[in-house]
C-alpha cells in the first residue's frame, strides 16, 4: 500500500506483551485439554496419537502467535487523528486502511481489560452510527487525552447528520 500515505503514529510497544498474553491465555484451555487427554489415554486404553497431534499443532500455532504475529501486527498498526478524519491502518497479511470522517464520529471512549490495566495501557474506542473502531494499547494518559481531543473535534464539526 502507498507508504507515504500511511498514518504516522504507532501503538505503545508494550501492546506486543499484551497480545502475547492474550493469545497465550486463549490457547491455554486447548493445551490443557490435550495434556489431560495424553495423561488419560493409556488409562482408558485409547491411542495417544490424537492428543500428540493436537498438542503439536497447538504448540506450533502458539509459538507463531507469541513470536512473529505480535511483531508484524505491531509494525503494521498505525493511526493518525487529523482535524477532519481519523486514519487507522491494520493488518497481518492483508493490509487495511480505514478513514473515518470526524463528522461521522458519534462518541468516543476509553476502555481497558485486566491485561491492559496491568500494563498501564488503554484502548480508545471510536463509535460511528455504523459501528465501532478501536485504537488499542496507548499509554493511559495518552489514550485519555486522545479521547478528549477526538470528542472536541467531533463536536465542533457535528452536523447532526443522523
Amino acid at each position, binding site marked *: 500500500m502507498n507508504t507515504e500515505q500511511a498514518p504516522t503514529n504507532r501503538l505503545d510497544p508494550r501492546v506486543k506483551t499484551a497480545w502475547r498474553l492474550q493469545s497465550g491465555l486463549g490457547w491455554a484451555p486447548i493445551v490443557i485439554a490435550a495434556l489431560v487427554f495424553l495423561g488419560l489415554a493409556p488409562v482408558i486404553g485409547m491411542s495417544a496419537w490424537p492428543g500428540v497431534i493436537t498438542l503439536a499443532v497447538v504448540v506450533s500455532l502458539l509459538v507463531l502467535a507469541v513470536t512473529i504475529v505480535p511483531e508484524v501486527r505491531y509494525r503494521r498498526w498505525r493511526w493518525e487523528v487529523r482535524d477532519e478524519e481519523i*486514519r487507522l491502518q491494520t493488518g497481518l*497479511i492483508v493490509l487495511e486502511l480505514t478513514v473515518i470522517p470526524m463528522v461521522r464520529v458519534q462518541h468516543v471512549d476509553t476502555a481497558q481489560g485486566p491485561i491492559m490495566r496491568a500494563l498501564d495501557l488503554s484502548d480508545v474506542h471510536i463509535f460511528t*452510527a455504523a459501528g465501532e473502531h478501536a485504537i488499542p494499547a496507548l499509554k493511559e494518559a495518552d489514550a485519555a487525552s486522545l479521547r478528549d481531543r477526538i470528542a472536541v473535534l467531533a463536536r465542533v464539526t457535528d452536523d447532526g447528520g443522523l
Partner: protein
Amino acid sequence: MAASDPVVSPAEEDRLKRTHTAAIVLVLGRSSWQVMGAGIAVLFFSGLDQLAVAFAFVGLALLVLIGGGVSWLAWTRFRYGIVDGHLIIREGIVVHRRRAIPIGRVQGIDIKADLLSRMLGLVEVTVQTAGGGATEPEASIVGISLSEAESLRAELLHDRKATPAVSTSRGAAPFIGDDAVNRMSDVRGVLAGPELDYELPSFQYRLSISRLFLAGATSSQVFVSFFVVLGAVGQLYSMAGGAADAVTSTVRALALPVAVLAVVAIVGIVIAGSVTASVIADFGFTSRRVNDRIETERGLLERRMIGLPVRRVQSVRIEQTPLRRLMGFSAIHVDTAGFGRSENNGRARTALVPLARRSEIRPLLHGLLPELEQAPEVKPLPQRALRRYLFIPALVGLAVSAVPAAVLQGAFLALPLVILPLTIMSAYLAWRAAGVGVDGSMLVIRSGMFGRTHTRIPRSRLQSLAIRQNPFQKRVNLVTLVATTVSGSSGSKHRTRHVDADDAWRLIEWLARSTPSQESETV
C-alpha cells in the same frame, strides 16, 4: 384512576383521547380469526362428530366472550394524545403503562389498515422514533379513524411550518384521478371521517396497472420460485424414475409427456401465485414527496402507508433483476437509518419506485428525492483486475470438479468441462458488473452478475471508507474498497474487489477532504 396516579395531571386526563369504539371489534376480530382457524382445524380432525361440534361451539363462544371482555377492558384503558409537546400513550389492563414520546424524537409515522379495518374505515398508526425498535417497542395506536390519524401525523411530523391547509382537497393532487385503482386504494370506510385538507405533495408517482403486473412477473421472487419448483420436480422425478425401473419402457414413454405437462402446469401455477402475491402487495403503489418527507402507500387488501423523513435516507439503490435488465427496467429503493422497521433482517429498506424505465429514473428521483438524484458515472474495473476475479473461482471450480472426476471416473470426467466454464463465466460477469464512480458529493457503487445494483451514497452518509490489499493485489496495484453506511440500526458494508489502487486513494482523499461547510450542501 387519575387519583391513584400522581404523574397524570387532571389536565392531561381531559386532553387524552380514546380510540374509536369499533376498535374493540377490530382487536377481537384479529384474535378470533386465529381461534376460529384452530377450532375449525380441531373439528376437521375430530371427524365432525356431534359431541365435538357442540364442544367446539361452546368453547368458541366462551373464547369470543372472554376475548371480547379483554379487548373491551384494553379499550377502556387506552388513551392517547399530544400534551405539552409529548405524544402520551396510556395502556395496560393489569400493568398500567404511560409513555411520553417527545415530538422532536418522532421520525416517521406509518399508517396501516387490514381488510377488516378498511371495511370499518379505521387504521393503525405506528410511531417511529429515533433509535426505536431495537431498545423499545414502537408506539402503536390501533383503531382510530383515518382523518384522526392524518391530523395526528400532521401534528407529530413538525408540519407546524406548513401553512394550515389550503382549500385544495386530496382529489386535486397531481396525477390522481377518480379511476378504479384510486377507488380500490381508498382506505376510507364507513367511519373514516371527513377528508382533511392537508399539504399537497410536491411530486407524486403512481404505479400503473400494467407496470404492476410487469413488476410482479419480473421480480426475483418469481425466479426463485421457478427454480425451487424445478428442483423439487426434478427430485420427485428421479425418485419416481428409480421406483419405475420395473415398469416397461412403453409405459415410461407414455408417462413422459404427461410428466412434462404436469411440470409445466405446476411451474405455471407457482409463478402465477407469486405474481399474484406481488400484485396484491404492491397494488396502487404510490410514492410522494411532501416537504421534508417521503410517503409511500401500497396494498390491495391490507393498505400500508409509510412516512420517512428525507434526513434519514442513507443511500439509494437502483436494482435490476436479470429479467428486468434485459427489458430495461429497474426498481428504486432507499435505505434508511435508525428505524425499527425490521424488514430484511434489521435493514430498513423501503421501495420508492417498484418499476421504472432507465430514462424515467432521473426525473422520478428529481421529484421524489432530489437530494440523491446526482448520478456519477461508473468507472469500470481495470483489465488486470479480471485475472484476480478469475483466479480463485477457477481454482475452486477445478478442485470441486476434478476430485469427483478422478475418483468416480466415467461420466464424471466431463464434470470439470461443465463446472469450470460456469465458474469462469460468473467471475467474468461479476468483474464486468463491478465498478465505482464519484462525482462531487456522491459515490456510486455498481455490482451484480446477470442483474445490476447501483448504490448511490452521498458523501455525508458515508460512515467510513476502507481499502484492503493482500500481497497478490499489491503486485498489480489493486485494492478492495469497503464503504460503510448505516441501514436500520446497524452498519452496512459495500465491498468492491480489485479496484485500481490509485482510484481508491483518490476516493480516500475525496472523503477526507470533506469539510463541514461542504456537508451542509448535501443532504
